C-alpha cells in the first residue's frame, strides 16, 4: 500500500493553494495515508490550514528556527529523513517545489518525476516534455521512493472542509550553514493571485510600454481578473518577472484567459493550454494565438479595450 508525504508550500504564515492541488494528485494514487509536512520556524497557523484539506490523514509540523525561510539546502535533508516511512513524496511544481524536490530525490538516490499531469497507477504517471509538445508516460521502479512534483494546473485544489490531526515531529539531522536567506522582494498587489485566479488578463509586447500596461490593469480590475504577461513584456521591463506566464513562467488554468498583444509563441501557449476559454486580441490576423483561441478579435488593443469596457 502507498503512503504519500506532501510537502506544504507556504509564505508569510499562509498556506499556498498549490498544496491542496498536490494533495489531489496524492488522492489519485489511492494511498492508505496522505500526510502533509509543514517545515517552518512557526508552523501552527499553516498547519491548521493544511489540516482542513480533504484527504489529508495527518499534518506533521517540523518547527526549527532554520526553517524560517524555504531554503532547499536546509529543508531537503529534513524531508529526506522523514521520507523513510513513505512510498511517495509530492511537492507542487512551483518554484518552491522545483527547487527543493530534486534535492530530496538526490539525497534518496532516486530520479524525480517532474510536473505530474495525471496518475495512471500508483507508480505510473504522465508528464509533459518539449514545452508540452509531447506527453510521456513514465513508470517508477517498485523498489524506490517516488519523488514527484505536481503540475498544479492539471489538478483542482482539494476541498478545505476536513479536520486532520496535527502532530509535531522532531527530525534529528544536522543542517548546513552554507546557504543563507538575504531577502525577498515581493510584488505587492491587491489583485487576485495569478496562479489561482479564475480570470486572467495578460499583456504582451504589443502593449508597448510600462505606462501603457495601465490599460491592461484597468481592464483586469474591471472584470476582477489577475494580470499576467508574456516573457517579451517582462524582458522589456513593462512588468515584474512574477507575472510571466509560460514554459518558464507560471503554468495556469483559469476559466477565462485573455491574451492581449501576445503573438502566441509555443513557450507562452504551454502556460495556458489548460485554460477554460482563451480570448485573443491582436492586430495581426495571422498571429498564432488565434489558432488556439476560443474567441478571437483582430484589431488594435488600444481601441478595443476601451470599447470592451464600454460594452460591459
Amino acid at each position: 500500500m502507498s503512503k504519500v508525504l506532501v510537502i506544504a508550500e507556504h509564505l508569510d504564515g499562509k498556506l499556498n493553494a498549490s498544496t491542496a492541488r498536490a494533495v489531489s494528485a496524492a488522492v489519485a494514487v489511492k494511498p492508505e495515508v496522505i500526510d502533509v509536512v509543514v517545515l517552518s520556524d512557526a508552523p501552527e497557523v499553516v498547519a491548521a490550514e493544511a489540516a482542513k484539506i480533504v484527504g489529508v490523514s495527518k499534518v506533521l509540523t517540523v518547527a526549527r528556527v532554520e526553517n524560517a525561510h524555504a531554503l532547499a539546502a536546509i529543508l531537503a535533508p529534513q524531508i529526506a529523513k522523514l521520507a523513510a516511512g513513505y512510498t511517495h513524496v509530492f511537492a507542487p511544481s512551483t518554484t518552491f517545489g522545483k527547487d527543493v524536490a530534486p534535492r530530496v530525490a538526490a539525497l534518496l538516490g532516486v530520479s524525480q518525476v517532474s510536473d505530474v499531469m495525471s496518475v495512471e497507477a500508483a507508480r505510473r504517471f504522465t508528464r509533459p516534455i518539449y514545452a508540452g509538445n509531447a506527453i510521456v508516460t513514465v513508470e517508477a521502479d517498485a523498489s524506490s521512493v517516488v519523488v514527484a512534483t505536481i503540475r498544479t494546473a492539471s489538478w483542482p485544489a482539494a476541498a478545505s472542509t476536513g479536520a486532520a490531526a496535527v502532530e509535531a515531529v522532531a527530525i534529528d539531522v544536522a543542517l548546513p550553514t552554507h546557504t543563507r536567506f538575504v531577502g525577498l522582494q515581493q510584488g505587492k498587489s491587491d489583485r487576485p493571485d495569478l496562479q489561482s485566479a479564475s480570470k486572467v488578463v495578460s499583456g504582451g509586447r504589443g502593449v508597448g510600454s510600462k505606462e501603457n500596461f495601465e490599460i491592461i490593469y484597468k481592464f483586469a480590475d474591471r472584470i476582477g481578473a489577475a494580470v499576467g504577461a508574456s516573457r517579451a513584456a517582462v524582458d522589456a521591463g513593462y512588468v515584474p518577472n512574477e507575472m510571466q506566464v509560460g514554459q518558464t513562467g507560471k503554468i495556469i488554468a483559469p476559466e477565462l484567459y485573455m491574451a492581449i498583444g501576445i503573438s502566441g509563441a509555443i513557450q507562452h501557449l504551454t502556460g495556458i493550454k489548460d485554460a477554460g476559454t482563451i480570448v485573443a486580441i491582436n492586430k495581426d490576423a495571422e498571429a498564432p494565438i488565434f489558432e488556439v483561441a476560443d474567441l478571437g478579435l483582430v484589431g488594435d488593443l488600444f481601441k478595443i479595450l476601451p470599447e470592451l469596457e464600454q460594452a460591459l
Partner: protein
Amino acid sequence: MKILVGYKRVVDYNVRIQVKADGMGVVTDGVKLSANPFDDIALEEALRLREKGLAEEVVVVTIGSADLTAHLRNGLAMGANRAIHVQTGDAVSPLTAARVFLKLAEKEQPGLFILGKQAIDDDANQTGQMLAALWDRPQATFASKVELTDGKAVVTREVDSGLETIEADLPAVITTDLRLNEPRFIKLPDIMKAKSKPIEVIELATLGVDAANHVTTTHYAAPAKRSKGAMVKDAAELVAALKQKGLL
C-alpha cells in the same frame, strides 16, 4: 577559480516537435539541434565572471553521444577555455548527469558550477539541485543576478512570489533563468581559434557512476489539441459571447 558549465545539446527551441506514430519517441531526424538556451546563458555568465577577473578558467561539459564535438566547439568559440565530453550512447537522466558532474567536481575542484535551470527537451529542472545535494554544497536556482564576493555568491532568484536573494558559500551550484544575461554571438575568428582548444573525452563507463534509472519512459503521445474557435467582429460581440458562457 574554475567554473564548470553544463552545456547540453537539445532540439532547437523553434522546432515544433512531433511524436512518432508508434508512440515510442519523438522525431529528431533532420531536426535542428542547438545548445540548450539556458546553457548558453550559463556559459555567458561564466565568461563574464572570467572577464571581470573573478574566474580564471571556464570549462564546458557535455554528457552524451560521440557526435557532440561540433556542439562543444561552439561553446569553445563562444569563449570557454576547454571542454570535457563525457561519452555515452545511453540516454542520460538528470540523476546520472548529476552523478557525473559530482565526479568532475571531485576531479576539477571548481569554485562554481553553472547549469541551466532546465533542459528544454526533458524539461526536468533537476540536475543542478541534484548535483548540489550529492556534493553537499549550496544551490542557487533560477538565477537572474549573480555577484561574487569574498568566497561567496550573492544570487537573486526568480521565484513565484517575486525576487529572492540568497547568499551561498563557494563552491556552489547556480542554475540560470532567462533574464540573467543575453548570450553573445559567436564571431568567425573565434570559430577558428576554437579549433585548437582542447576537448577531453571521458567514457562515462570509466567514471564508476551508478547510471541506474529509477524512472522509465514507456510511451509518448501528442498533447490534446485545442481547436481554433470563432472570430468575433467587435468588442460588443466579444462581450456578448463571454456573457453567454457565463464568464463575465
